[in-house]
Structures are given as structure tokens and as C-alpha cells.
């Protein structure tokens, strides 16, 4: 297995994810325009860029909700362009959504248990007739769900219907649900959105914990620079569907193109104050 080395990686292990020349068009709009980058195992990588740069679109390609017009995506050595959508969870890609996509009428616990589906499900016939194995598999899903509920401190809310919960809590439920499928790669779309300062800190710790304790590689889309710069190992910046920069947080933060298109000049901080 080979991978292109134009980034001059010193790391010899093959990357977990390789995005190569991905282009997505919607009618006349080019949402992604030949984007390429790699994600290494065990890193936290951030994807930034102005609104409408194509970040969520890229996520949707990774979870096969969108078809790429061209380019390829290789995950763990396996091209995924042809796989059916529901296989993504099974091969190890989990995700959260920018605008929450929970199962609104179900409880927190059931939401998380649906997350276990890809790894623990017994099949209709077995379930219908309680054939051997059904109970064991059910118990496994149950155990994993409990563990995650606990991990994300959702114990108190476990039996509530998710749609009644505050936004922040719902985000945690989504996270728990995504982790339930035991992903290798976790895609987080703007997890910090709508959180206040305090909660942000908690989130940063949590993401690091997920990487360190669960060994999950994280790809993160975020506009909150504090968080991005604080926790990522590497940052990729997009603009108008094209990659404009990549590197360490410090490198990207000072990249002129990124400043011009996205961050704005430092001295303007605190507009008009």
C-alpha cells in the first residue's frame, strides 16, 4: 500500500484516512474542489474555513451522504467510494451532525443503543423469536450504552426523551451515540457551537479524552479558534472548496491566506472597541 508523500511525512505508518482530489458540485456550485489531505492514526485534526467553504460537505462525503463527483477516499486502506452508507459505521467511521440529528421521540438510552447497531445487532428473526444469542447481543449493546452514558455524564437523563433536553445535552447524546459504534475515526461537526466558555473547556478535555482513552482519531470542524488551537495536532484550512493551508495550529493561524479569508487580521480584534 502506498500513499503520496508530498507532505514529507516522517511517520511511516499508513494514514488512517486519505482524501485525494475530492470534488463535489451542486449544479453550478463547486462545494469541494480537488481537496486532498491525510489523517494519521491517533491524531486530532481540525478542519477550518469560512462559512460555505465545504467542510460539512466533506463530512458528508466521508459518511457517504453525498457522492463525490471525482476523487477518492481511502479509509484504513480500503476505498470507500462504493460502500453503502450504512456500512460506514461498521468499518469505523462515526459522526455527529452540525444541526443535531437525534431520534427525537426516543430516550437518551435508546438513542445510544441505536448507535451500537453496527456492532451489536441480532437480526430480525432472532429477535422476533428470541432465538439463542439475541439476549446476549442485547445485553452487550446495553452494557456499552450504559458505559457511554456514564462516560458522557448522561446518567440523570438516560430515560428522558431526547427532544426535551437542552441543546448542550443533546450534543452530548449525539457524541455518545457516535462513540457507541466503536469508531476508529470520529467526525465532529462544530461541537462547540452554542456552548459557553466553561462548557468549552469541558469539551476540549472530553475530545482529548476520547482520543487518549478510547484511542479514537478525531476530525473536527470548528469555528471556535480557542478550541481548535488548543487541542488539535494538525489543522487543515479550506476556502471555496479548495485547501488553502495545512500544518500545525501555529502554522495555520499565521498563514496569510487563512488570515485574509477566515480569521481576519489580529489587530482588528475587538471590533471598533
Amino acid at each position, binding site marked *: 500500500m502506498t500513499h503520496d508523500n508530498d507532505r514529507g511525512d516522517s511517520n511511516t505508518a499508513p494514514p488512517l484516512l486519505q482524501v485525494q482530489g475530492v470534488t463535489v458540485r451542486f449544479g453550478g456550485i463547486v462545494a469541494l474542489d480537488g481537496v486532498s489531505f491525510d489523517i494519521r492514526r491517533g491524531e486530532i485534526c481540525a478542519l477550518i474555513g469560512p462559512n460555505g467553504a465545504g467542510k*460539512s460537505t466533506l463530512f*458528508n462525503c466521508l459518511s457517504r*451522504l453525498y457522492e463525490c463527483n471525482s476523487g477518492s477516499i481511502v479509509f484504513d486502506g480500503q476505498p470507500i467510494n462504493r460502500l453503502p452508507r450504512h456500512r460506514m459505521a461498521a468499518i469505523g467511521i462515526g459522526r455527529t*451532525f*452540525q*444541526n443535531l*440529528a437525534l431520534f427525537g421521540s426516543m430516550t437518551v438510552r435508546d438513542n445510544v443503543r441505536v448507535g451500537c447497531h453496527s456492532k451489536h445487532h441480532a437480526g430480525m428473526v432472532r429477535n422476533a423469536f428470541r432465538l439463542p444469542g439475541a439476549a446476549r447481543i442485547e445485553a452487550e449493546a446495553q452494557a456499552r450504552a450504559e458505559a457511554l452514558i456514564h462516560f458522557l455524564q448522561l446518567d440523570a437523563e438516560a430515560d428522558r426523551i431526547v427532544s426535551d433536553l437542552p441543546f448542550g445535552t443533546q450534543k452530548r447524546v449525539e457524541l455518545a451515540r457516535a462513540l457507541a459504534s466503536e469508531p476508529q475515526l470520529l467526525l465532529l461537526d462544530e461541537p462547540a457551537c452554542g456552548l459557553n466558555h466553561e462548557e468549552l473547556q469541558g469539551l476540549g478535555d472530553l475530545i482529548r479524552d476520547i482520543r487518549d482513552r478510547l484511542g479514537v482519531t478525531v476530525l473536527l470542524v470548528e469555528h471556535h479558534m480557542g478550541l481548535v488551537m488548543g487541542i488539535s495536532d494538525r489543522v487543515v484550512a479550506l476556502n471555496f472548496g479548495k485547501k488553502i493551508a495545512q500544518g500545525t495550529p501555529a502554522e495555520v493561524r499565521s498563514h496569510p491566506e487563512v488570515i485574509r479569508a477566515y480569521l481576519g487580521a489580529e489587530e482588528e480584534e475587538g471590533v471598533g472597541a
Partner: protein
Amino acid sequence: MNEFLHQLLAGLATGGIYASVALALVMIYQATHHINFAQGEMAMFSTFVAWMLIDAGLPYWAAFAATVVLSFVVAAGIEFVVIRPMHKAPVLSVVVVFIGLLVIFHSLAGFFFGYTIKPFPSPFPADAWYGSSLMSAHEVGAIAVALGMVALLFLFLRATPLGLAMRAAAQNPGSSRLVGIRVGRMLMLGWGLAGAIGAVAGMMVAPVVFLDPNMMTGVLLYAFAGALIGGIDNPIGAVLGGFIVGVLENLIGTYVVGTELKLSVALVLIIGVLIVKPSGLLGKTIVTRV
């Protein structure tokens, strides 16, 4: 060849019937995002009202106008009294209310007017120049009326602020309130207009199929199919769909499978089209992002 032409025109004539009922469905869908299963029965009842007025000696056009106005008012009233209280209920509960309305109108029509068929006059003189043995004057007239209604409706929905507000209210009542749209009024207006369109449709249908309480039961399915195949959010599509269904049904019945299975086969075809083009021929796919 002559027969083919003849079948085609007969299909268009029946299609005109479906189209005008389909229009009423589109109207109410645009205004409320519901399919009113009672629409056909309401139209039938309106037609009975017109029949009664004519029977009582009113000239045709006076009865026509009175019926349209009355239907508008009654339909708007139904929205206010029966549908409004259900605005928070799950969709299917609303569907059940529609079914309730359907059986009520059907049963009342039977109770008041009986089940024997009644002739209903056509506003178009039988010997008008546009009538022929290929298409009767009424059939031509009814098609013209359907086309006229669709033009008006299209303009209303697409080119007036009120039409826009109505579509907005149906799609997202919450945001509509926030921008100052009186959602309740929009719903009432939508129901009223649908009721009025239905009344016109009924008065165009009745001269062809005769007036009786079962007049619309068969038509509703075809109208529903027509509205969906053309695009439920587009009045032009609905009319087009109505004509397609009418013609398709005739041609399939005559040349392909015979009359026994024509409905089944026509429906399979329609569903086939929808599978390929899920929002209908002229409909717009509404996309929501995750």
C-alpha cells in the same frame, strides 16, 4: 388512427376532471401541507348545493357564484372549527379527521339528497361551435375552465406576496409567525380557496358523471395520482398530471391490458415514474441538510 385520436381526446376530457380536483388538492397542500381526503366529498356536496339552488329556480350563473362563495365560506369555517384545534396533533390524527369529514359529507349528502343520480346542467350550450362528436362542448369548456383556474392559481401562489406568505405558513408556521404572517388566516384562506376550487371542479364534473353522493369517490384517487405525478407543489404540474392520468388510463385500457386491469396498470406506471422522479414531473425536490 381515428380511434386513437378519439381515445386520446376522451382521455383529455376525463383528465380535465381529474385535473380540476387535483388543483384543489394542490391548493390545500400549498396552504397547509396536508392532503385533504375529504376534498372530493366537499366538492360533491357543493355541487348538490348548486343543484338545489338551480332547482329552486336560480339562474345557472347566479347559482354558480353563490355556490363558490358559500363553499369558500364553509371550507374556511371547517378549517377554523375542525382543523384548527388539531394543529398540534400528529399528522395521522389530522388524516383521521379528514376521513371523519369525508364520511360526514358523504353520509349527509345521501341523507339529504338520496343516492339516485341527478342530471346537472352544463353552462356550455350543447350545440356550441366548439363541440363535436370527438369532444362535447362541455368537455372542451371544462378543460378551458381547468386551464383558467390553473393560470390564476399559479399567478397567485408564485407572484403575489400573499401567495408567498401562504406557502411559507404551510412550510414553517413558527418562523412565519415570527415574520408577522397570520398563519391562522392563511390556513383559513387556503381552505377557503380549495373549497371554492373544489366547488368549480364539482360543477364541471357533475354534468359528465351525473350527480350523486358517490360522484367523487372514484375521482379522488385519480386526482391524487395526478397531483403527485405532476408535482404536488406546482399547480401546472397537477393539471398536467391530471391529463396524463386520464390519457394514460384510456390508452392502457384500450390498447394494452384491457379495461379490467387498466387502473392497476396505470397506477403501477405512475408509481414507477415517481420512483424515478420522486417529486413528480414538475415538482421541486425539497432538500434539507444535516
